[in-house]
């Protein structure tokens, strides 16, 4: 889809200024009903893109990814007026190929949530039912990807499932890459050892094409490595027994139907026991919150973001800024995260969680000796109504990530394939085996 569009742009069949006038109008119309954007790029039609693999292709960008000259709030009031002075590496790589930013998409504040309801701005609404959630934290990205009737790819970000979850609820494809193959330079941090920038699209071909543009080592992010693709051979896939119990009936049916469809196309399936599934959730939340609580320390109203009249000493001023600038969930995670790394608790929480992470990685690795991929449903539930979400306790809320935290904690790549309305098939691969995941997606769609 993108390929044809780019050819039409290069051939002069599509004139970008007029095209973007329409696209921005459409975005505004969608946004007025679904709140998928925090900021729309009004200047999109004036952009003069470079000529490349993505000449003139519209991309939306999750708000936590820094875009030079375009406000980037990460969904937080504390960054309400923050306009970055530099582009994230992923943005420069896409701009280098000619992509144009249409806007910054809605999300939970700093990625803290599973339904995009922990947002300082308007809450994004599900493309199929506006009473329901888009999922989160990249809710806006999922929503616009489903509703855009023009070529489009969304840049999103996942820490514990924030790409797969909204992709499933909004019915689109998504890839969350192997940790470390996409630069995080310019990503407003949630939990650095878990954060991954990924993509959403309505088709696997576009997903794959843009994926190949954004991957690769970046000297601005020393945790990056080059992407070393594997052969896209898919023969045998494992299904963790622990991932297919207690599912919503509709989801259960859609899942097994999808497995049958893939079996017919020659892939073998086998159920197996995956250890440490109960430990993955607490380990994930401890690591994520410990890191988040340090990342959020920088927001003290001194150099950027929310500023208030100068009153009191530094600590009093910074406390007031943080009290007014952070939402409730951010405050909860700062407190919990700080607790888990305090002297006296650090050993039992933070360090233990780090050790469990190693065991989880080893466990997955063990099974990838046998299977080309591992599958499960992406989410255990259908998109909940906003009224239902309000009633959830924080702990019930965190449990919604039960199927996505495992691969996220282990830094494994995972693909969401839409298999029914708001239901996704989650395909998890070994490190660097994105090719196999795309292959499963292609086989499913063929």
């Amino acid at each position, binding site marked *: 889809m993108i390929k044809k569009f780019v050819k039409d742009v290069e051939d002069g069949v599509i004139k970008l200024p007029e095209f973007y006038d329409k696209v921005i109008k459409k975005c505004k119309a969608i946004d007025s009903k679904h709140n998928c954007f925090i900021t729309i790029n009004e200047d999109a039609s004036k952009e003069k893109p470079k000529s490349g693999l993505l000449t003139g292709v519209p991309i939306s960008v999750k708000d936590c*990814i*820094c875009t030079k000259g375009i406000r*980037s709030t*990460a969904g937080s009031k504390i*960054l309400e007026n*923050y306009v*970055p*002075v*530099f582009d*994230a590496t992923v943005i420069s790589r896409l701009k280098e190929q000619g992509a144009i930013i249409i806007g910054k998409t809605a999300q939970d504040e700093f990625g803290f949530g599973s339904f995009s309801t922990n947002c300082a701005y308007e809450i994004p609404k599900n493309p199929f039912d506006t009473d329901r959630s888009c999922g989160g934290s990249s809710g806006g990205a999922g929503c616009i990807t489903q509703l855009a009737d023009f070529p489009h790819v969304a840049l999103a970000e996942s820490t514990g499932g924030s790409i797969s979850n909204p992709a499933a609820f909004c019915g689109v494809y998504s890839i969350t890459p192997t940790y470390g193959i996409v630069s*995080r*330079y*310019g*990503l*407003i*941090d949630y*939990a*650095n*050892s878990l954060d991954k920038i990924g993509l959403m699209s309505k088709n696997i071909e576009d997903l794959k094409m843009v994926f190949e543009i954004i991957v690769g080592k970046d*000297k*601005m*992010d*020393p*945790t990056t490595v080059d992407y070393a693709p594997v052969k896209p051979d898919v023969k045998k896939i494992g299904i963790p027994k622990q991932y297919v119990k207690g599912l919503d009936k509709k989801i259960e049916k859609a899942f097994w139907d999808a497995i049958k469809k893939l079996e017919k196309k020659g892939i073998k399936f086998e159920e197996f026991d995956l250890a440490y599934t109960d430990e993955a959730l607490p380990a994930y939340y401890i690591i994520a919150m*410990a*890191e988040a*609580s*340090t990342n959020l*320390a*920088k927001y*003290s109203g*001194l*150099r*950027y*973001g929310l500023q208030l009249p100068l009153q009191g000493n*530094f*600590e009093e001023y*910074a406390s007031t800024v943080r009290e007014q600038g952070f939402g409730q969930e951010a405050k909860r995670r700062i407190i919990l995260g*700080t607790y888990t*790394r*305090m*002297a006296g608790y*650090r050993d039992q929480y*933070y360090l233990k969680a*780090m050790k469990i992470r190693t065991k989880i990685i080893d466990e997955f690795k063990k099974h990838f000796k046998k299977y080309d991929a591992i599958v499960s449903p992406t989410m255990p539930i259908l998109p909940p109504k906003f009224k239902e979400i309000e009633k959830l306790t924080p702990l019930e809320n965190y449990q919604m990530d039960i199927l996505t935290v495992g691969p996220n904690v282990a830094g494994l790549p995972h693909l969401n394939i839409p298999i029914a309305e708001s239901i996704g098939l989650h395909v998890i691969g070994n490190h660097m085996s994105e090719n196999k995941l795309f292959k499963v997606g292609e086989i499913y769609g063929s």
Partner: protein
Amino acid sequence: MEVKIGLECHVQLNTKTKIFCGCPTYASEKPNSTVCPTCLGMPGSKPRLNKKVFEYGIKAALALKCKLPKETFFSRKTYFYPDMPKNFQITQYETPIAKDGLIKIGKEEKPIRIRRINIEEDPGKLIHVGGDITNAQYVLIDYNRSGIPLLEIVTDPDLSSPEEARIFLDKLRLILEYLKIFDVDAGLMKCDANISIGGGNRVEIKNILGFRAVEKALKFELLRQQRVIKTSKVISQETRHFDEASGVTKSLRIKETEEEYGYIFEPDLPSYDLSEENLKQIEKQIPELPDSRVLRLIKQYKLNKEIANAIVSSDIYVADFFEKCSELYSNSQKIGNWIALEIIEQLNKRNMKFHDLKIKPEDFVALAKMVDNEEVSDLVARRKVILEMVETGSKPVDIVKQKHYMIVKDEGKISEVIREVIKKNKKVVAEYKTGKKETIHYLVGEVCKKVKVNPKNVLEILEKELA
């Protein structure tokens, strides 16, 4: 009562760029001009390690005979302070770059244990306006310093006096200077000093700036604690600030517990390999260090230990100067003595560094040769000529000529003066003739006051005249 002092020294390394970004490290006069998103802690920015900093840290670790881990990584130390752009500092906690080292100090070569060395980032600089840290009206922040690489060197509480602390710091500075990882002129050194007496509570004096201030701060603090104990009160465990201008320490806060920093691993940086192969590469670049140089000077130039120690421990340039002179001149002991007893004394008196002096090795050697040729006396050379060379950089020949320091060799002239002295001191001459032979030295002295001569010659002639 036993005094225990431990130091935590933060030394700025002299790399060209900062530790986690490409910003220059030179001292810019314009505040907040050598900064970027990373050293300002902007959202989305990431650190990337300057490999030179790592190399310098390893050099220091090897020079201080530390144990190095196989692998090292960074940690986040979280606390809120206005000079910290991110409100956490990237430092090392679990795996410092080095542990368990040693520096030997003083004549007795007392071992001072190094507990750990780690590399970390400097925060910004706070400028207190209208007062000091305890009473400023407001504070300005200059982030030019943010991200300057620091080496933190922590000792065990092995120092037993403020003087020892100074000797330790001088030795540390010298080693860093030899390693060429610290700029003695432009680089800053900050120290936190812990001091307790008689096994009492520990007081921490924070952020003492500069090598010399540490001794001053500790001297004051020692006296203060001794006075508190005399009045039978208990020293409270607290953090104090040293006010350089008034020379006193002031209480900042009472410490009830150890500070809480909530360390986590720095997730934006990978771990770094310290394999033996890497270490060997760096070890090769370590030059001769002060202790070895002392031994070599004793052996190679037949210096006595004290002179060799004085030359080496003063300043790297002093020892270089000595060796350059020795290449031009064979009597190294004489050069050594002159440097140790005259030049170093002048430096200490004036609180100067050797390379502030204008003296050149060839001129210094020329002066030594003039003494050998009896053109000028040893005493005048040491007490007068060297002083002037140090101050003006003039050539010794010119100084001697201008100031008429030249030894008079014309025997006729000398005899004339001698006869004059004999005439004026009839009483002394009479005493000499009655057998008080030692009075002749008085007469020699009187002659030398009037004319620059070699006292030996005067003695010979006088003895003849009075015979």
